[in-house]
């Protein structure tokens, strides 16, 4: 009978902070610049250059630490981690080992077995490395230092997770907290959130931890799931075959569904950490902590609870809307402006999600303002525009955040309210479609739909379909219908 094994998982999560500039110099952190155009002597390791710490990095790191219930090392310092690699221009990374900014916190995740605590061992600040591009043509590698010096926090968890779903729940939890704080957009695919997974197996019931391996290069939830499953199996197979797991770093290849060891004999894994003499310690006062705590937003769990109480919208909508700080803010602000939370939710759940998906965007990328969405809802309510025009206008709001009132006016999209003109058009439609008129009079109720459609077409969509329907029936029956 084969043995039962338990998987023990801990995570090292790197999060790129949403600062405008790098951690130690004034270069922009913006994505998409041509190679090395966001660099200076500091972030390219030029001789004689010196680092100066970006205050906002401490601010963000502290906010995250407090949000995940950490203790703060009020005196924290930066250390140099020495290792040679071309993406690391100084051949040392400025990081924190001895006195990281935060330690000993936790988050709660929902698992099959109920709420569960995942411990945070520590959070430290550090600089990102540059990017290596492999040039097959010249058989060499090329280095771009635009990302070199972009601020990161590394969140190191305790080995408290036991399965891939728990890992995903933990990452989602972190992502929500950090996004809500505005400290990072936490996009796994774009690398602004990266997870290294430490994994070991042990016989079920054993209190002793097995030897762990570290899995790198995991840039999606599916890759993480695959890597955990793959590595769990590899370790079990090894043990069952009488072998031993060795502590190493392995690179996961999601396409092959396999991993391989990353280090060569040229790497000693001895980073010779020591306090960076170019930087002075950071002292985080009680007042500073209080200030950051005060600015803390309402996080997702609390927000969900409040939505249930305040707004009459489905649980599913609440889940989606609070799944993004941007979306939740938009929802609340628009609802406050127009007083119709249900309609706001419908726009977000319907057209907004559809367009996001169509354009492969993230809810955090939404750029339109609550004012303009509220105006659009108002226009539709007042029947100034009909529902199909409203969708057209919404697209413009979504794409360019246009003012719907001006947009409708400029484009002449308002419903024609001149009943005389509408009647004339309908009379023409009736005259031009004798067969349909005949069908209707013979009791074919469906024929009216065709005539409404023809009228709308003639009116270029700018008519209220209900009004058209009413006038049509009236004219076809030769007597006015009672007003509704």
């Amino acid at each position, binding site marked *: 009978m084969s043995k039962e094994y338990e998987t023990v998982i801990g995570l090292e999560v790197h999060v790129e902070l949403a600062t405008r500039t790098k951690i130690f110099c004034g270069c922009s952190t913006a994505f998409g610049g041509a190679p090395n155009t966001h660099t200076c*002597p500091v972030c*390219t*390791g*030029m*001789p*004689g*250059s*010196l*680092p*100066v*710490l970006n205050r906002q990095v401490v601010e963000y790191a502290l906010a995250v630490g407090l949000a995940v219930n950490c203790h703060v090392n009020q005196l924290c310092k930066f250390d*140099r981690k*020495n290792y*040679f690699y*071309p993406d690391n*221009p*100084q*051949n*040392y990374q400025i990081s924190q080992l001895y006195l990281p900014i935060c330690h000993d916190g936790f988050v709660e995740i929902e698992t099959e077995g109920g709420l569960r605590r995942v411990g945070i061992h520590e959070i430290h600040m550090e600089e990102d490395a540059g990017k290596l591009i492999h040039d097959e043509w010249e058989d060499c590698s090329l*280095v771009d230092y635009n990302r070199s010096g972009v601020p990161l926090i590394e969140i190191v968890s305790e080995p408290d997770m036991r399965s891939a779903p728990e890992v995903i729940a933990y990452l989602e939890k972190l992502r929500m907290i950090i996004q809500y704080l505005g400290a990072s957009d936490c996009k796994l695919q774009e690398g602004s959130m990266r997870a290294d997974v430490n994994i070991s197996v042990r016989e079920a019931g054993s209190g002793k931890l097995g030897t762990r391996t570290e899995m790198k290069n995991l840039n999606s939830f599916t890759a993480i799931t695959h890597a955990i499953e793959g590595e769990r199996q590899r370790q079990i197979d090894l043990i069952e075959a009488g072998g031993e797991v060795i502590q190493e770093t392995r690179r996961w290849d999601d396409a092959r569904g396999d991993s391989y060891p990353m280090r*060569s004999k*040229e790497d000693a894994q*001895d980073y*010779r*950490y*020591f306090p960076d*003499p*170019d*930087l*002075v310690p950071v002292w985080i006062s009680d007042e500073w902590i209080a200030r950051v705590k005060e600015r803390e937003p309402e996080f997702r769990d609390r927000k969900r609870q409040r939505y249930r109480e305040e707004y009459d919208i489905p649980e599913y909508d609440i889940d989606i809307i609070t799944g993004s700080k941007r979306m939740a803010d938009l929802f609340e602000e628009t609802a406050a402006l127009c007083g119709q939370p249900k309609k706001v939710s419908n726009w977000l759940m319907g057209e907004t999600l559809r367009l996001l998906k169509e354009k492969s965007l993230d809810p955090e990328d939404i750029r339109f303002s609550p004012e303009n969405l509220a105006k659009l809802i108002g226009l539709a309510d007042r029947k100034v525009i009909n529902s199909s025009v409203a969708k057209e206008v919404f697209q413009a709001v979504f794409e360019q955040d246009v003012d719907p009132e001006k947009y409708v006016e400029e484009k002449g999209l308002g419903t024609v309210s001149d009943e005389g003109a509408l009647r004339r058009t309908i009379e023409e439609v009736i005259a031009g479609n004798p067969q349909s008129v005949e069908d209707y009079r013979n009791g074919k109720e469906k024929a009216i739909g065709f005539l409404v459609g023809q009228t709308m077409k003639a009116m270029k969509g700018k008519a209220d379909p209900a009004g058209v329907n009413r006038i049509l029936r009236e004219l076809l029956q030769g007597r006015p219908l009672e007003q509704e």
Partner: protein
Amino acid sequence: MTERAMTKDVKRDGPKDLCALSAAELGRAVRAGETTAVEAMEAVLERIGEREQLYHCYVTVDREGALRRAEKVQKQIEAGELTGPLAGVPVALKDNLCTEGMRTTCASRILENFVPAYTAEAVRLLEQAGAVVIGKTNMDEFAMGSTTETSYYGVTRNPWNPDHVPGGSSGGSAAAVASGECFFALGSDTGGSIRQPASFCGVVGMKPTYGTVSRYGLVAYGSSLDQIGPLTKNVTDCALVLETISAHDPKDSTSLERQDTDFTSALVKDVRGMKIGIPRDYLGEGLDREVREALLAAAEVLRRQGASVEEFDLSLVDYAIPAYYTIAAAEASSNLERFDGIKYGYRAQEAQGLHEMYKMTRSRGFGAEVKRRIMLGSFVLSSGYYDAYYLRALRVKAMIKKAFDEAFARYDLILGPVAPTTAPRLGESLADPLKMYLGDIYTISVNLAGLPGISLPCGRDSRGLPIGLQLIGDCFQEKKLIRAAYTYEQAAGRQAPGGKEEEAHV
């Protein structure tokens, strides 16, 4: 020894020998219209032409650029845009100070063709004051050495006797000042690298309190110990230059905000009531007899001027060198990792693969002394040794600082030698590195404790080689140092070589 030979083509209506003027004197003459920045530069370039062959003070002399800059400065002086005391005065820079557009080698092969994209803050301040850069002076490779013999570009010779070293690591700067190949120079001091060559070359050299001069643009050796400072012909110039380059720099996190950097205000001949202590251990075993006598004579001069002088026990003197070499080597091993053949400097082109490229580049690019310190530094930081070596050294550093705090509770200044002997002969020191390190005993603790220290000439030995006197002050007490040094200089009636009274050049 005194040589009054005039350079040949000094302008007939100008001063007789421009090169013999101090920086302050030249600045005054330029302001008064008696000479120009261009004439001064031409004179100094002529002097370099005559003497450089022998002394080799410079790694790079930027003749055309220097004259062009001098012309520009002269125009600004005439337009009234530059009015400061250093306007139009030619300066030499140690070759570990980054200069935009001008090669900066740190006297290493690994930076043979490195042209920085920016200028060091201290240099920028000098240029803003109108000083004109001549070129870059020779040094021990990456400032590691005490003789300027570890330079990849050849040794510099002592202008007092070319068979002797000029000291180091700022040996090129000290020798250039001594031989009149510049009016003043900047050096850097990590364990004595300004004060010791100043002493060997008979000029004035000062290391200010750590954090007083920005390190931005100084190629780092031991970051927690490095400071830039002046090498000058006399104490007045020293105060003037230090005043010019001292400023808080937001680009250097360790730069201090000081309000008391008007150092020239301390050029006062008065030491009455000043309490000076001489550490007993500084006069003991290992100190050359002639140096000791010159030192005690200098102390006597200060005593006669009204200072009280007494010997005292400064503790931990013997522990400064091992603590220093642990800390400096550790920091250096990390600071020098960036020299890898990728972003700048030398690369071993034929290497196969990344790691071989790293190893070949660095093994060939660095000289023996640099490699020695990198190896030592990597070792003391490595896993299992960090606590025993590096952390212990940082604790000893704290203890040494405390010993100085106690001393300065009793004394305004500490007086002592700069080096155990006068300048050794070329080739004598390199044979035994440890012995060379021991020569730093009187200067090194000043860096560990972040203190200011000044070295000034106090006579010569029987071979005619200059002897230096070191004054050490408590943190931020540069003014006391300058006052005592100025008082001694005035009272002893001595001028540095290159000045009017004495001339190093033989």
